[in-house]
């Protein structure tokens, strides 16, 4: 991978909101660089500051302090240049629901300065590529969720941007459409070299498609690496079951002698988190049998990004999402 000059560079990027006389720090001093050709995912629970960050980078809101340069332009002083340089797929639908899909692709092309003929040609090209041609003359409100999402992406690509932002692109899509969208995003990145920055609260999504995962929590960047390195740093989880709590306690004591291992024992269960756990497990099981405390059950699980998040924050990302969802419903 040839990573040249950064297409995004933030320094101390901060945004606070005041609600009900309380100041909430949505994003706190973010320092991030994204290079050309990268596919980057901002991962974090709802309310972590992912979307606020994206909204600052796309000129929708101004930073409270700090700076951000996108495509070489300052997001406050050169808003229009930033807007001309980026594609944006927001959380909602790009196309007005009363409009027809094709009209909206054309109007976006015109907004970006394409001639009438070029805008129409580009619209046909994109609608074809996203398999929307036959639906493009219907009101957007009659399209399915998946069709509308494809239309959103098509609209975001009208001016062939070098940099594309997607805010929670697959939220609300069924699994099949989600996978299709992810493939399209990856293809865009690989075949055209488009730099892609997306936010997601789906672990699987960040894991599956991003070269680089920026984990955000409470407005701060808490991890920044490839998904595989984030996970391998955490190690595998070896779960062992024993015939009695005493055997479990003895086994836990033995397991604690493995360098770098984190061991938790409860009842007849012992959980060992250790790098290369799947390679160490057979010898551990043999050693325990020889010591007279044989394991009766064994399970080795590779780490997930949720484990990484749990390790970093002490909370599960899945649970954090569920809690915010419940709070949202109650509010």
């Amino acid at each position: 991978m040839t990573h040249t000059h950064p297409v995004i560079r933030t320094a101390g990027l901060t945004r606070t909101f005041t609600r009900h006389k309380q100041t909430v720090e949505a994003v706190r001093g973010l320092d991030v660089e994204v290079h050309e050709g990268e596919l980057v995912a901002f991962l974090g629970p709802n309310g972590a500051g992912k979307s606020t960050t994206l909204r600052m980078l796309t000129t929708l809101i101004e930073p409270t302090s700090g700076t951000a340069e996108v495509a070489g332009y300052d997001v406050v002083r050169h808003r229009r240049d930033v807007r001309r340089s980026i594609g944006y797929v927001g959380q909602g639908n790009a196309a007005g629901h009363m409009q027809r899909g094709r009209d909206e692709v054309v109007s976006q092309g015109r907004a970006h300065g394409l001639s009438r003929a070029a805008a129409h040609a580009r619209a046909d090209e994109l609608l074809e590529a996203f398999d929307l041609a036959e639906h493009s003359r219907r009101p957007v409100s009659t399209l399915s969720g998946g069709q509308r999402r494809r239309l959103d992406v098509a609209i975001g690509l009208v001016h062939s941007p070098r940099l594309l932002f997607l805010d929670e692109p697959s939220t609300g899509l069924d699994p099949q459409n989600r996978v299709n969208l992810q493939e399209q995003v990856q293809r865009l990145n690989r075949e055209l070299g488009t730099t892609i920055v997306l936010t997601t609260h789906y672990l699987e999504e960040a894991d599956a498609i991003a070269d680089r995962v920026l984990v955000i929590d409470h407005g701060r960047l808490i991890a920044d690496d490839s998904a595989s390195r984030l996970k391998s740093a955490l190690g595998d989880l070896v779960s062992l079951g024993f015939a009695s709590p005493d055997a479990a306690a003895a086994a836990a004591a033995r397991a604690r002698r493995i360098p770098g291992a984190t061991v938790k024992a409860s009842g007849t269960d012992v959980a060992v988190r250790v790098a290369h756990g799947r390679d160490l497990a057979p010898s551990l099981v043999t050693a325990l049998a020889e010591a007279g405390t044989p394991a009766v059950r064994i399970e080795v699980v590779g780490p997930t990004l949720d484990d990484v998040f749990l390790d970093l924050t002490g909370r599960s990302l899945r649970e954090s999402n569920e809690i915010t969802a419940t709070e949202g419903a109650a509010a």
Partner: protein
Amino acid sequence: MSTITRTHEDVTVEPTPARRTTPTELAAPGFLSDTWNVMVRELKPVFREPASVLFAMVQPLVFLGLFAPLLPEVETGSALQWFVPGIIAMTALMGASFTGANLTQEIVTGSHERLLVSPLNRSSLLVGRALKEVVPMLMQAAIVVAVVTPFSFDLNLVGVVVCLAMLSLFSIGVGSLSFALALVSKDQEWLFWTVQQTLVFPLLLLAGVLLPLEGAPGWLQTAADLNPLKYVVEAARHLFAGSFPADTIAAGFAGAAVVAVLGLVVGLRAMRHSS
């Protein structure tokens, strides 16, 4: 399901949503082309679905059908002659004041956000929308005139054209105010409708659209004198009848201009602060 599968294959066959143009090659459109583009976009649904202009006309048509027949005959001729110009002004007010609801919907569904991130000038986003209001207003006025012409209603062509110019100005202003209200209400649709409904009827009554203001108590007269729509309606009545008293017509245009300027100032401010 088949659609989804086909998507997958199609994209594989045609792998690149091809790049034919790069942003640096594109000239940045100016304010006028931005405004034009916004207006054309706004007009698309009107032309694709012309019957949509009837939606805002339900109330004026109800008044025309069920209220006008109750009016007593006046010395100068048919009551319609007095009533219809007011109803056309009412249609303009209704249509333009409803228009923010479309923006509210776009705020809720997300297309407004997309336009905010596009290179379109913020001022154009408002002005283009406001200018578009003239088109449905003209269509609606034509419908009202077509409906009443068989009922011994006379109109002066020059007067009507001048009147529609005045109402265009008025519609641009009311439309801008409606957009400003939508931008302030954001995703709270109820707020938009509450304010819109609360304001529209007092404005109509205080403009003498439904009943004459002559003989109203002093406080009501004063309130009506502060209502720009009153002057618009008075001028409209003269213009439709083919009389051109300069001061009344000037007052009508002044009333419409006040609304237009106020609307554009408030609307532009709201659009610049939209996020």
